[in-house]
């Protein structure tokens, strides 16, 4: 199929901000010597035989600068353990975690403290706010432990509190806030030091569905301004589809597929991935690029961009009843998109909707 050759994904050309290579986390006795003594990676049966539990197995990932990279998996898939290996909150059994060109696993304790103080931020599932501090002091806390002068850190804290929309609640304590507000504090706190790398560990899982949606929109708004490199953990595939530039799907400690939402939907690597993508609305995920056909004439009703989602252009294309031209920024004609193809996709007929 012609679609397969089209390069998809924002990351391919950008350098990796964080990459991990063959990262393992095994629980059990003598896990390190077990791994070290093998020329090829052990499979699940070999691990079970040695009495080891493979929480993270041979994970290799590249996270590009400025992208939202989502690790999706059900509970017990090892996604949280992977995140903690990347942040070095737990020590991986083997592998490399390269952040801005240096191996984090070789950094000393003092170096790690320095990196975390200036380059990393993390948001937690259950907020992890300090109960004895007000919103203002909670947000200023990461600066306080760096001994930033008081007026400077409070000014910065007020700035990020305003950014997350909590202005006016600076004096409140965490127990006085709703879940959504508490997580806004958590987000503000993680942004206070202006991190380059932002870890979000199931940040919205503890919230009600309506609030969760609101917070997802809030995150998109923030990211449009801040353009951080984000590693986001979730068990909610819809959330992943909605927010991700790229998604890695984990099962039993291993990453079974990495790709854009579109790639996962169009070409699921395994039956397991297909199971997740089955009910996803194609039009929301697929772009014009993957539905267009070679241009074969004139009389277009209008022009659309190749990276636009089908859902965004469906109404106008179907209403016009004529094909639209697909053109890139410079105006070069790439192909055309027909109303019939859009309709087929919307009602789930044809090859793409299978």
């Amino acid at each position, binding site marked *: 199929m012609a679609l397969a050759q089209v390069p998809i994904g924002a990351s391919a050309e950008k350098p990796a901000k964080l990459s991990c290579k063959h990262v393992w986390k095994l629980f059990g006795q003598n896990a390190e010597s077990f791994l070290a003594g093998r020329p090829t990676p052990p499979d699940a049966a070999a691990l079970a035989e040695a009495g080891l539990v493979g929480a993270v197995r041979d994970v290799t990932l590249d996270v590009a600068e400025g992208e939202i990279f989502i690790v999706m998996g059900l509970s017990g898939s090892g996604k949280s353990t992977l995140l*903690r290996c990347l*942040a070095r*909150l737990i020590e991986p059994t083997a592998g490399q975690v390269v952040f801005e060109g240096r191996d984090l696993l070789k950094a000393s304790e003092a170096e790690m*403290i*320095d*990196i*975390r*103080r*200036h380059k*990393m*931020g*993390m948001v*937690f*599932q*259950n*907020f*992890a706010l*300090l*109960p*004895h*501090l*007000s919103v*203002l002091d909670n947000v200023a*806390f*990461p600066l*306080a*432990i*760096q001994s930033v002068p008081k007026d400077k850190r*409070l000014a910065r804290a007020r700035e990020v509190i305003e950014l997350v929309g909590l202005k006016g609640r*600076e*004096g*409140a*304590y965490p*127990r*006085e806030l709703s879940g959504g507000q508490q997580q806004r504090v958590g987000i503000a706190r*993680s942004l206070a030091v202006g991190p380059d790398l932002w*870890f979000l560990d199931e940040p919205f899982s503890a919230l009600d569905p309506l609030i969760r949606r609101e917070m997802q929109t809030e995150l998109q708004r923030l990211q449009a301004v801040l353009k951080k490199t984000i590693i986001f953990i979730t068990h909610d595939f819809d959330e992943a589809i909605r927010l991700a530039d790229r998604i890695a799907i984990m099962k039993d400690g291993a990453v079974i597929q990495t790709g854009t939402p579109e790639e996962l939907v169009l070409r699921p690597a395994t039956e397991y991935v297909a199971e997740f993508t089955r009910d996803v609305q194609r039009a929301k995920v697929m772009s014009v690029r993957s539905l267009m056909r070679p241009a074969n004439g004139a009389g277009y009703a209008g022009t659309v961009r190749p990276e636009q989602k089908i859902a965004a252009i469906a109404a106008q294309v179907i209403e016009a009843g004529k094909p639209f031209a697909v053109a890139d920024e410079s105006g070069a004609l790439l192909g055309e998109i027909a109303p019939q193809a859009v309709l087929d996709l919307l009602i789930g007929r044809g090859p793409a909707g299978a």
Partner: protein
Amino acid sequence: MTDTALTSGSRPIPWGRIGWLLLLGATLALGIWHGLLPWAADYPKPWVLPLAKQITTLFKASLDTLMPATRAFSAVLQVPLDFAIGLFAKGFPLGPGPDAPAIPRLSWIGIIAAVTLIGHAYGGRKVAAIAFFCFAYLAVFGQWNPAMLTLALVAVCVPVGALLGLFIGVAAYRNPRFDSYVVRPALDLLQTVPAFAYIIPILFLFGFTPVTPLIATVAFAMPPMVRATTLALHRVPAEIQEFGAMAGCTRAQLLWRILLPSAKPTLMIGVNQVIMLTLNMVIIASMIGAEGLGFDVLFALRNQKIGVGLEAGLAITALAIALDRLSQAAAEAKPALYRPGTPFHRRHPHLLLGLAILAATTLLGTFLPAFAAVPPEMTVTTAPVWDGLVKWINVNFFDYFEALRTFLLIWILNPVKLTLLNLPWLGAVLLAAYAGWRLRDKGLAMLAAGLIAFPALVGLWDKAMITVYLCFIAAVISCLIGIPLGVVATRSRWFDRVQQVVVDTLQTLPSFVYLIPVVMLFRVGDVTALIAIVAFAVTPAIRYTIHGIRQVPPHLIEAAIATGCTRGQILWRVQLPLALPEIMLGINQTILFALSMLVITALVGTRDLGQEVYIALTKVDTGRGIIAGLCVAFLGIAADRLLRAGAERFRRRLGIAARAGMG
């Protein structure tokens, strides 16, 4: 497994029960026919290990080398103690001699106002009222001076004990090996060895100085703080710790700025326990030279001055209640919400007002004596009333009390005592080992056998059996009273409220106070000891029964109602069986409470291990005291481990049953 065969109670031969019967039979046979195996019935004298003497010698030998260290330690602690005593009780003399000018102590009016304000700051009007009435009691009943001496001791012991406990707890939290190999065994020992027993080596090392009771009190009151600290730190959510790491905290910042502040509520419970145990120790501390209320109680007890003793005892209770409620309120108080920029005097109105009143009244006291000391014409005493009441009861009801006393002695106490005294030591050891093996494993069997055998090895078997006998009967009676009361409390709201007040009061009373009325009515002897022990040990039986029944999941009760159970059926078929593990833990606590009280009852003339410790204390015989104390502790630990294993087994069985029911 034989276990499952046992529980199902079907075909397979119940080897476990047969084992019990065989062992019991053999033990009884040995007990009845002593000649059968004389060495197994009575522990042979030549086999007794002279541990006590060796320990005494060791202590004497090491005293010279330790002396400079202990002296220095005393000197350091002497400073805050002197300051507290000066501040609360005696003032600071500026020159030698009794008539020298002095900086006055804090005015009593100021102190009452200050504690009332503290109560108001943390707990509102209710706690303020409690604090006010408790301290006013001290003033009105003429207990102010001794009470302030006691308060001075508390004021030094609590910070020292709490801080020491905090540091040890933090060290144990950071180093799990230190925790499981050093801290936990040490705490188990400190909490089961009777306080009397470790007073002796402290007394020996530090001598009769004012600091010695302080050190003994801290040793007694600190263990719960250590436990509370490790527990509180382990309970801090993992995410909060991870946040600390991600924010780039150093280890010290993680501890001081994240872990400890987050753990504050549990830590404050530990501080509260330290306060209560400190007050509990007040009377024992007065035996080695502490002044204050404890000394008054002890003096009254020794001289049979019931009224005086009761008033001083109640004064300790008043102090205990006030400090308990104040510290609980402080623990539960949430930080007030002040907007940034609030000026200091607006943020701390109570603190400033309290300090102002203290300063003003104390200053006034230098001109007006009524401010400096409670005027004698203001105080009352009820001592003659109490003495009269006791006399009246003894005159009119002597026969009834005597009949009860004789009945208990002839029909319950003496038969059990005789049986236990005739119990062959080897049989008892083997029975304990068998119970340990059946309830858990070989490890517990060895532990139980070793602990039970220890009194025999050091030649205290008979005294140990008298201890067991008193403790056993007291525990049985406590359970017979406490468990039904607990059940009633879960079924009647007003009874629950009443029992809560009574149990709270019983728990804040220092254990000595129990002795006073009982001695008056039943004179000295085993019956007196028994009643005092039961009054002290009945509280955990009530508490744990209530807790056990309350924690039965509500959906099970609903299911029982839905199937049409009557209230009685719900109790007997659902609540009690499911509450059994908790009730067993309550029995366990009852036994430990009884053991700790037992040593105190030695004052009224029991002939058990408590008496042995008491004699050692009066002779400052380190080895003898330590060994007797260890015997008590080992009996307690053996009972504790066996009952815990039993409760654990029950729980497992309930868990299995529940799962089978669901499938």
